[in-house]
């Protein structure tokens, strides 16, 4: 009898200790994330839930909101003539620009990851475009893109190529914006650089000693260890691309002929251009669901390709 109880005691003691440790760990977790929890409760939850409520109403912001149930959602899917077009434009843009920015951003970071003299200056030069904003950008790009007198087409004319109408041509406007986006890709370079700096030189050194060439080093050391950064840029890239707004608002107003009518701009126009904040909120939540679904999808695959050196599972 005593032997059994003592053996039982021997088993339960470590288990109790384990659960105590687990509780302590959980407690520490909640303590550490408490600043953000406060933010969530005080500043995020309220407004998000409020906008969800408004999505079930008709609200012109001047009079009180009027409950309409699901009709905003129904109308969005069936009666809004530009809903599907806007969604298509937004997705079309994202499908091209997200991978493009990932590849170009990483390539640029690799080029700038040397200790050659002048690298610091180059990095700053490539960073500059992300700092220019507002009215100045618009004028400048319109000047660059002008079909007859602009910089781009004048340059192309030197090679005997007749340039397109760029942002003034409904068929070329969206590609022009993808191109514009690429110009400020240097803004995100430091994130890539931070990721690259996190890979110990010793790994490269021992690989070189083992005879690995530059491509092999990239493929088997850099890339795998960079996956946490790639994952971050992929997720934030998707979230950002699907919420693209600026260029449509400042430059194109969604045109010409609605060819650059990003979804986020489309809903903004409903809110403040047509005084339909309720409908805009419904559109926002539809967008939210789409982004969330995509993000969850990427998250679910992450276990297979993202390698964290020090993850405690």
């Amino acid at each position, binding site marked *: 009898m005593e032997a059994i109880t003592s053996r039982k005691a021997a088993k339960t003691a470590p288990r109790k200790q384990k659960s105590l440790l687990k509780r302590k760990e959980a407690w520490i977790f909640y303590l550490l994330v408490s600043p953000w929890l406060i933010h969530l409760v005080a500043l995020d939850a309220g407004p998000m839930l409020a906008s969800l409520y408004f999505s079930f109403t008709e609200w*012109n912001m*001047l009079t009180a909101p009027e409950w309409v149930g699901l009709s905003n959602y129904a*109308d969005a899917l069936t009666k809004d003539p530009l809903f599907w077009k806007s969604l298509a434009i937004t997705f079309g843009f994202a499908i091209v620009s997200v991978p493009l920015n990932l590849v170009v951003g990483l390539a640029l970071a690799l080029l700038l990851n040397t200790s050659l003299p002048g690298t610091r200056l180059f990095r700053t030069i490539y960073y500059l475009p992300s700092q220019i904003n507002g009215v100045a950008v618009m*004028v400048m790009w319109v000047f660059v893109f*002008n*079909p007859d007198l*602009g910089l781009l087409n004048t340059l192309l004319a030197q090679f005997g190529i007749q340039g397109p109408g760029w942002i*003034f041509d409904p068929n070329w406007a969206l590609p022009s914006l993808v191109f514009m986006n690429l110009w400020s890709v240097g803004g995100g370079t430091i994130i890539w650089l931070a990721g690259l700096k996190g890979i110990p030189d010793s790994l490269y050194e021992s690989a070189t000693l083992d005879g690995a060439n530059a491509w092999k080093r990239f493929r088997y050391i850099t890339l795998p260890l960079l996956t946490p950064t790639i994952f971050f840029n992929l997720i934030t890239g998707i979230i950002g691309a699907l919420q693209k707004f600026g260029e449509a608002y400042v430059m194109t107003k969604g045109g010409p002929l*609605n060819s650059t009518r990003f979804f986020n701009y489309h809903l903004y126009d409903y809110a403040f251009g*047509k005084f339909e904040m309720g409908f805009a909120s419904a559109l926002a939540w539809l967008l939210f669901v789409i982004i969330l679904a995509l993000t969850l999808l990427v998250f679910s695959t992450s276990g297979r390709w993202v390698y964290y050196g020090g993850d405690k599972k």
Partner: protein
Amino acid sequence: MKKKFLRKWLPALLIGVIALTGCAQQNNGTAATNEPAANGNTSTGTAGTERIKLRMTTWSTADSYEMQKSVLDNYMKEHPNVEITFESVPDGYDQKLLAQFAIGDAPDIIMLGETHIPIFSENGGLADLTELAAGPNGIKRDEFYEDIVDYGKYKDKLYSMPKDWTNMAILYNKKLFDEANVPYPKAGWTWDELYETAKKLTKTENGKTVQWGFKLPGTDQRRVQPLVLAYGDGIVSPDGSTYQGYMNSPGTVQALQWLSDAYHKDKIMPSSTDTDSFKGIDMFAAGKVAMDFNGRWPIEKYMEDPQLDFGTVPLPVGPKGANNFVFYGGWGIYAKSPNKEAAWDVIKYMTSRGGAEIFGDFGFVAYKPVAEEKGQASDPNYKPFTDEIPNTKTMPDMIDVDYPKSGKPAFTEALEKILLSESDVKQVLDEAAAAADQAKQK
């Protein structure tokens, strides 16, 4: 563990919190003015000795802002018990104003454009000024240009008083006319005559146009209205309920065919791409266009330019006669303001002698005594504008309160299509009218 944390981070936290509270203290003085109604500001007349705090908002920047501020400063000198906080919104004025309406806390005195008035008054955002205007502290109707004051009305009630306004006229470059040996345009000319004149003033070199005869922003649904009204009865029915039969009426089709030919057939107007690329460059001042459809805004600047010899002439007329529209800027009062009489007194000052004296140098004012003193009805550069006041027509925005979601997007899209490439104008307008009517159903 916790002790170490506190020792390390507490000083930093304390500094942060102190800094923030310091800022909050500095700025909390103004928080009081953000609270509506229940803070004891009574709405007595201006002769009262209680301190009255008013919030006033504007979209004006640059010199216009300075001018308004100086007028307000003068008012406050004459009325030391009134404190006016002048809030400028450098961009996104509509957005911020709507947000303030939405949370029920908007400024007392609100700057308004004519397109704001229908939708804000329809939904109870603005106070009805009719009684204040007619009351003991009211205005004398004959001291103002009635047509302009009426722009601030909606459904027969007054909601806004005019700060300044402009309608449209044609500015022409005398030097380019002389070079081409074309006589200057005269009042009473027609759109067809303008077309022919513009053809004579369009020059090409090596297949590229270097000078256009006439500039009119063709995709701007507002600025196209005088052309539309010259040939038709407007794009919407007089009761604001239907677009079918109006947006695609034979008259409207004819007007937009004129536009299409101007761009595509005879190329007398710069296309939207040309105008956009010249943004930041004044095509008229640079001598790239011989005639410009514009308001009064650049006139003072043009008068100072020694290189530019220009004249102004009223808009051409069409089979339907003469017509024009007004860009109006004025002030209204927030429906929930606790200080309506005090606010009205400020508005009255700004729109009559006190303000008009200063605004009148840069814009047309509705206050007759000042307008006449400044030669707005007599100066040859201004007369073509002021003579057109009786020809002012109501714009679709004021006829159909749903215009922003029905007629406006549909008509704008139609204009874009017509200008982008040569199209069947009737078909495009048929589609637009149908889309506009459908949007009204929702």
